[in-house]
């Protein structure tokens, strides 16, 4: 559906040339939710804006839904853009128009007659759950409602691709989740291909099938979300994965426990898929001469399976601890010794 080939975007700047996007290659399949994660300045915003021609690549080609976006211009580009809609971090609604009129806007652009416009707007309002707010102005809506208008507006012309530019970054966690649920729902119901950029791993975890990690203009890691979670290779990816698997307090807790139990070892276990269903701890206590102390645990769901982390403290003779760790290894569970007691 989307193919990005050898794409480079260079901005001239005072300090010379700034490579915002540096030789990126990506393929997004039809019906996929594809996430791009990176810190601000990583080039992800520039990348997504090249998908609808708001930005043109310096080198390389961008093809979306069979059209070479990086080549076409004028009315052909405008036509293509009706099939590639976008939602924004700050919603970008027209404040002078009501909810219904905002949703009707892209239909007006596409030249849909007023009777069909009215019908389509009604459908969309139902789809995004904004019944009863049709005649409200954006100023009277909450952030989550505004983004629902943004989504309805983006879906108006039955696009093939939906681009989400930090669509949940201005929302509180609860609203973020409801918007993400809506996106998954749309993806399943309409088979819409979604590309989203974010700096929150939570978003990737919750709805994406595949993820690309960007750092200084390059894609440094790419793969199915679960694989990346299970086995992050780059340091930056590890940091992002930690955002969701390792709450802030974990470090404090482990520090505290390391102090309290100078002996033994604090170990982080990672479970993926079926591994979550083994009686691992029972086996540990039964078969090895160790004391097991559970510090913290968490299970995260992704679009392609579950992923869990468990922090435990193992105490006993060091040889016995080593044997226990080897055993865990053999059970297809990831083990990482946080620090020696």
């Amino acid at each position, binding site marked *: 559906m989307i193919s990005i080939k050898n794409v480079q975007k260079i901005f001239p700047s005072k300090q010379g040339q700034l490579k915002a996007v540096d030789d990126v290659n990506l393929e997004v399949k039809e019906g996929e939710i594809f996430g791009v994660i990176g810190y601000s300045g990583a080039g992800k915003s520039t990348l997504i804006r090249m998908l*609808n021609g*708001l930005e043109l690549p310096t080198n390389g080609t961008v093809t979306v839904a069979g059209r070479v976006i990086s080549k076409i211009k004028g009315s052909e*580009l*405008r*036509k*293509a*853009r*009706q099939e*590639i*809609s*976008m939602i*924004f971090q*700050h919603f*970008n*609604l*027209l*404040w*002078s*128009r009501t909810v219904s009129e905002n949703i009707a*806007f*892209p239909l*007006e*652009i*596409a030249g849909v007659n007023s009777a069909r416009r009215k019908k389509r707007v009604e459908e969309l309002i139902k789809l995004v759950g904004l019944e009863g707010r049709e005649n409200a*102005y*954006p*100023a009277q809506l909450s952030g989550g409602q505004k983004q629902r208008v943004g989504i309805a*507006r983006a879906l108006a*012309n039955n696009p093939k691709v939906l*681009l989400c530019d930090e669509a949940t970054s201005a929302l509180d966690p609860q609203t973020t989740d409801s918007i993400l649920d809506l996106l998954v729902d749309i993806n399943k119901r309409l088979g819409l291909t979604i590309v989203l950029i974010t700096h929150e791993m939570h978003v990737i975890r919750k709805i994406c099938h595949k993820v690309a990690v960007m750092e200084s203009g390059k894609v440094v890691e790419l793969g199915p979300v679960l694989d990346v979670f299970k086995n992050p290779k780059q340091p930056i990816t590890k940091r992002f994965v930690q955002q969701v698997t390792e709450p802030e307090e974990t470090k404090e807790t482990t520090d505290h426990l390391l102090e309290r139990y100078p002996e033994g070892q604090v170990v982080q276990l990672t479970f993926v898929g079926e591994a979550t269903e083994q009686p691992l701890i029972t086996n540990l206590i039964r078969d090895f001469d160790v004391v097991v102390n559970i510090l913290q645990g968490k299970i995260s769901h992704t679009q392609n399976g579950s992923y869990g982390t468990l922090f435990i403290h193992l105490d006993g003779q060091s040889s016995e601890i080593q044997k226990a760790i080897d055993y865990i290894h053999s059970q297809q569970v990831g083990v990482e010794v946080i620090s020696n007691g």
Partner: protein
Amino acid sequence: MADFMEMVKWDKLIEATRETMYMTSISVFATFVLGLLLGLLLFLTDKGNIWANRTVNVVVAGFVNIFRSIPFIILVVLLIPFTKLLLGTMLGANAALPALIIGAAPFYARMVEIALREIDKGVIEASQSMGATHGHIIFKVLIPESLPALISGITVTAISLVGFTAMAGVIGAGGLGNFAYLYGFQGNKPFVTLVATIAILIVVFIVQFIGDYFTKKTDKR
């Protein structure tokens, strides 16, 4: 008091008020159209905008700056040949119009530009991402989204135009300025000047009231 009232030629006052209203309304309308055009041109040809064009921008900005800087009373005198060419006369309310419009439109153009700059760039980008043409962007986004500011701007401009008409009146365009000058100043009747002032104030208040009403009505933020 009765003497005072007799001093004022009421029929002349009413006629003068009507002339002032006439000059103001025609010039406000023309200023709105011309200023909007110039303001849009200034905004759209600026760097990073949809018609980005340095030459056009510099030329328009130069025109606007020059005509905005010339004091109105001098502009009226400067434009005498032009007005004569256009209308064949220097007298009457119509003769004031070219100077009024040329004096006020550049002023309003700057206000339009400022109003358009206030629009969130993201909204323009969002419309582009939907495949909007430049016409869509101008008529469905830029103008509606800046409407309250455009209206409050034309209100301020209209009030200065009332002032300009009074100045134009002194050199023969008629209206309340002429009335105050002719019967008040030259006739040495300060009371008549006071009455003319009150009439002008009433016109200004009406303009302000209408402007405020529509600014508020269109502002949905």
